[in-house]
């Protein structure tokens, strides 16, 4: 599979053309901003999409996405080419998202929940953004999928997005996240099960063809 992305026929996917990319990467290693700009053009949307779904705040997502490219630019000489640029960028993005989430978790003081929310049926909601009634009214399946993904744990979400959204192979995900391939597969399976559970009303209602 080959991914052709961005401008100027740039192909920097998992199995990209070696010659064209090698030249561009070499320029990036020499801190050529123009060459790096092509890389940003090719990946900004995908990296932002990944980061946006990994973080709750859009503002944070914009900021972290910039940080991903700045880190990549600063440390491009460390990119050894063993993995694809895409895998490398998503690894940086994943690490920054995890860092940002940890910082956010540290800064949030645990608030006691109101007594009325202690019933089991309300606690089944894994994320406050998951509002089936509103979603049903809007009829937005994509929104439902987005919210179901947002309701997953970071471990499931990252694997699901990298595999099903970004077409990364099991090996590439394992490399990017520092996990065994078997763990990647089991997380992917559980993530899809979670998604399926969340989308049950839509699946039963025949909204998914």
């Amino acid at each position, binding site marked *: 599979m080959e991914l052709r992305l961005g401008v100027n026929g740039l192909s920097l996917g998992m199995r990209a053309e070696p010659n064209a990319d090698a030249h561009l990467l070499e320029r990036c290693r020499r*801190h050529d*901003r123009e060459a*790096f*700009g092509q890389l*940003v053009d090719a990946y*900004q*949307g*995908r990296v*932002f*999409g990944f980061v*946006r779904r990994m973080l709750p705040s859009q503002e944070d997502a*914009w900021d972290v*996405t*910039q940080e991903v*490219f*700045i880190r990549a*630019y*600063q440390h491009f000489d460390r990119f050894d080419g063993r993995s694809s640029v895409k895998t490398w960028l998503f690894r940086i993005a994943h690490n920054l998202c995890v860092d940002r989430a940890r910082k956010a978790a540290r800064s949030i003081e*645990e608030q*006691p*929940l109101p007594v009325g929310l*202690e019933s089991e049926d309300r*606690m089944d909601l*894994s*994320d406050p953004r998951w509002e089936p009634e509103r979603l049903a009214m809007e009829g937005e*399946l*994509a929104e439902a*999928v*987005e919210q179901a*993904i947002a309701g997953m*744990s970071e*471990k*499931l979400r990252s694997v*699901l*997005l990298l*595999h*099903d*959204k970004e077409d990364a192979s099991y090996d590439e995900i394992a490399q990017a996240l520092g996990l065994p391939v*078997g*763990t990647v*597969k*089991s*997380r*992917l*399976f*559980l993530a*899809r099960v979670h*998604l*399926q559970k969340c*989308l049950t009303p839509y699946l039963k209602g025949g909204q*998914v063809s």
Partner: protein
Amino acid sequence: MRIWKRKNAEDEGIDNLSMGPLELDLALERADQLEMARLVKTLVDEQPSLTWRSALNERLRSVDQTQRRRRGTAWVWRAGVALGLAASVLVGFLIWPVAGTVQVPSGAVESGLIRAFREEVAANEVAGAGATPLELDQNGGESLAPDQAYEDTDAEPT
């Protein structure tokens, strides 16, 4: 509070899936799993705005300038250190006290060796390379006292 607990339970269950590798591979290829994959694939990525891109370019330019400045500073710093080290070594060679001469007791073997060495050096300076008076002596030649060995043989005897 309980939301956090639920998340932790979910995380714990992640790596404890009771399926063999082959079974898991087959499960991932099931129609319902592939349908979920298809749904995720259809999600649309938002493209960053020009303002965002412009801000990124500004930050990249700033990073570039900082790195260049650091590289320049590092070069000057390294050159300074290298010059300093070279100067220290030079000063060390010039000023460092030469080890004092060792006093050898007269009559010892060492003093005999030193005397022989000095005589040989003196002989070389006068006569150049060749047999020394001592060597002549050892070869059965005419024995000359060290102080007579370098006298002019063409001079008229007194």
